[in-house]
């Protein structure tokens, strides 16, 4: 841990240290599947940590482990000074107030048979708010995410993908949480809708000071929204640091490959980037060949 990162444990909202996640496999005496290995991350209040990686890198699993949706095999997850690695149902209910989630797919993250009002009121009800207060809060939330108040008694199917994602964000905001885990929240959206939803995330953070653990496969998205970025590869974090450093001049070979793989919207710059990528790949292959004796 470098000196610049240390602000004292009290300043950290979320600390994950030495986290392993394993899934048991079917079959007698088979070794469990290791999804995450020795994960160490932390998030300060009001900060966004971007988590970038490709499919199967374990980025989604890390988000789910923080939420209690994936089994913690080793290590600890500390949230607001409290160890939540193995929190039970009761503790989770209390945690629900401060720790929330926005999922990737706006089409399956809302129950199709419930009205928007009921969906938004669900977390409020769990915390024991009375219906009148809950109704008032639901209206505030809709306003906050830019949806009309009459959305309350409509069904999710009456909304577009971008609008549904805003409902999901409103649900996450309902209890004014301290941290929202965002699992690929814009990757199912069209380009222009993505821009609108990213703006909304930024605006909410400015207004409420919420922290995000922002999971995405898209380096551009992560660069845009994060203060700090962690890069995942094969269940491990290979590199983390300030967003500008990691996403512009990365050190780890994988991050370098990732950065140069994403095409830019200009033919000539893209041609340059393509050549850079080919040179990098050749250099890395050479390094690998010389680094690992046969």
């Amino acid at each position: 841990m470098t000196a610049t990162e240390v602000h004292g444990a009290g300043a950290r909202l979320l600390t994950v240290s030495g986290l392993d996640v394993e899934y048991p496999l079917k079959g007698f005496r088979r070794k469990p599947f290791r999804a995450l290995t020795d994960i160490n991350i932390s998030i300060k209040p009001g900060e966004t940590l971007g988590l970038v990686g490709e499919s199967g890198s374990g980025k989604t699993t890390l988000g789910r482990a923080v939420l209690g949706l994936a089994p913690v095999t080793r290590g600890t997850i500390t949230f607001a000074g409290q160890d939540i690695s193995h929190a039970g149902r009761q503790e989770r209910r209390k945690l629900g107030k401060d720790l929330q989630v926005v999922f990737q797919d706006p089409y399956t993250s809302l129950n199709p048979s419930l009205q928007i009002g009921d969906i938004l009121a669900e977390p409020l009800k769990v915390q024991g708010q009375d219906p009148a207060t809950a109704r008032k809060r639901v209206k505030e939330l809709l306003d906050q995410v830019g949806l009309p108040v009459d959305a309350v008694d409509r069904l999710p199917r009456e909304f577009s993908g971008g609008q549904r994602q805003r409902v999901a964000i409103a649900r996450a905001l309902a209890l004014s949480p301290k941290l929202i885990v965002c699992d690929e929240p814009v990757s199912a959206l069209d380009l222009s809708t993505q821009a609108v939803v990213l703006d909304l995330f930024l605006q909410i953070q400015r207004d409420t000071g919420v922290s995000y653990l922002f999971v995405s496969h898209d380096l551009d998205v992560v660069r845009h929204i994060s203060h700090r970025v962690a890069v995942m590869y094969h269940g491990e974090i290979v590199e983390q640091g300030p967003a500008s450093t990691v996403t512009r001049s990365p050190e780890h070979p994988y991050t370098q490959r990732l950065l140069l793989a994403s095409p830019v919207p200009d033919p000539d710059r893209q041609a340059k980037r393509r050549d850079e990528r080919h040179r990098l790949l050749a250099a890395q292959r050479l390094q690998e060949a010389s680094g690992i004796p046969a």
Partner: protein
Amino acid sequence: MSMIQPAELVGQTGTVVRSHVVKKILKNPLGLASVIVIVFMIALAVLANVLAPFDPNFANIGKTLAGGDTVNLLGTDSVGRDVWSRLVFGARTTLLSALLCAAVAIVIGLPSGLVAGYYAGKFDGVANWVVNVLMALPGIIVLLTVRAALGPSVWISMVAFGILMAPGYFRLTRTAVQSVRNELYVDAARVAGLGDTAIISRHIFSVVRAPIIIQTAVICGVAIAIQSGLEFLGLGDPSVATWGVMLNEGFKNIYLSPLLLLWPALAIGLTIGALVLLGNAIRDALEDAEKIKAPRRGSGTAQETLAATRHLPGRTSPAAVEAGTEHHLVKVSHLGVGYPQADGSIKKVVDDVSFHVDRGEVLGIVGESGSGKSQTAFSILGLLPDSARIVAGSIQFDGKFTVAPTDDRVSQARLGGYRGKRISYIPQEPMSNLDPAFTIGYQLVTPMVRVLKISKAEARKRALKLLDDVGIRFPEKTFNAYPHEVSGGMAQRVLIAGAISCEPDLIIADEPTTALDVTVQADVLDLIRDLQKRLGVGVILVTHNFGVVADLCDRVAVMQNGRLVEDGDVREILRNPKDPYTQKLLGSMLEDKEPMTMLVSGGMGAAQAAARDDDPDAKEMAL
């Protein structure tokens, strides 16, 4: 804000939606008929004491096998019992026993299915084994055994049959719960701290409710059939009047009084038929709602609808293409594609689209979901869904019409000669585009044998070469593999190999890298670029990604809501977009933007910007 929903649907509560289903069932003539029959039968059963002039077992020995008269409406049976009275009391016993059977099956099957589906684990294993046992049992033989053991009571055999039917409910519930258990909204409820009971009752039970109702209608029908069957065999309780006992009585006297058979057979047939129809009507009513619920992404939507006109004014039928355009590899002129709607109108998804592609040129068609870009590409391939209509314009390939100006559908006869041979296709999703039941080699070899008319051995040699060409390291191994044994990136390479296998002049690639990881995407883009250069083919690349466009394309066409808003040289469009929509799309790109700044809202709040942005956003709801 433009909502696609009909106005009366907006702002309804859950209960209203449910009554909507009831209304739909009653509007469906078969549904209405089945409800009437069932209500009639229930009325008979409830009012049996009032409707029946005689006790069902009162025998008038002096008047046997009589025809209908004012005293005995439907006549009498072989011992002089009143047929009408027995029919009415029979309705009571028969319906009650069917309900008993369904109730037993639900009480056992539903909770066990919920628990097995939600918690899985040991209980699931045991329950499945029991279900396998129950489903291996032939129903009637078990009921015969039960009767031998416990006596000829209707109720006991229906309880036993209910147990035998429980696996139906168990499986239904278990499958439904399993599919919902991992839905994201259930995860969201867990994160909110909802308990298992609350999750099951709130989020999961609502999913199984409808299938359970349908299943119950079917099970009641089966129960009536089985129970009547047993009694027909003479194995029922002879002292209780049921339709099955009456059938048995009628069959004994089939030569003397065939009408005795008619009434109970009619009652059984009508009741079971009504139950089956009711089940179908409920399913139809629910599926109707589902259709609106699950918008298909990717297919186009333009709000404008046109009247269904097969021959649009001004559409003449020239035999040859316009002079001076023959040299274009493909030329699409004023193309319109639409889908006929239930109300007779046509919903246009592609509207007045014109562009051309020359040999060796790469054209990118860019747009968001619902822009009609894929529909345009598929109309060139002739692979539009059956219901699609060409409502305007023409397509010519290599100087000949594949869609002539008067055609309202793509001519499969004309395109059949080109497709696979001169025009080929690279799909988006690598896995779902290979048939899981055949090896990769088979799927590469067969088109070559069919299209190029070469021998299998020759095709095999070429397939191995192709696999090598697309950068697969062990061609032989991949050739013999099944699709599920290779990675997504490798499968996409296989599909590209397939697309170039018959040396086409034009390749249509529909989002060929969208389903791939970024690093794999870069490799596949390299591959497509190399092949395109080497083979000199024309390519139409459909994509939503301007980076991919910049990487591969010579020219770009930008589409929005079925219309082509702008086209031209790739540098021109990407650097100096003229159309506001293109500007907006490029403005939404994150590359080269100052991090943590607002992208679209500028000075105003993001929420206001979002609200203002609802209109184009809503169009994304492709139907």
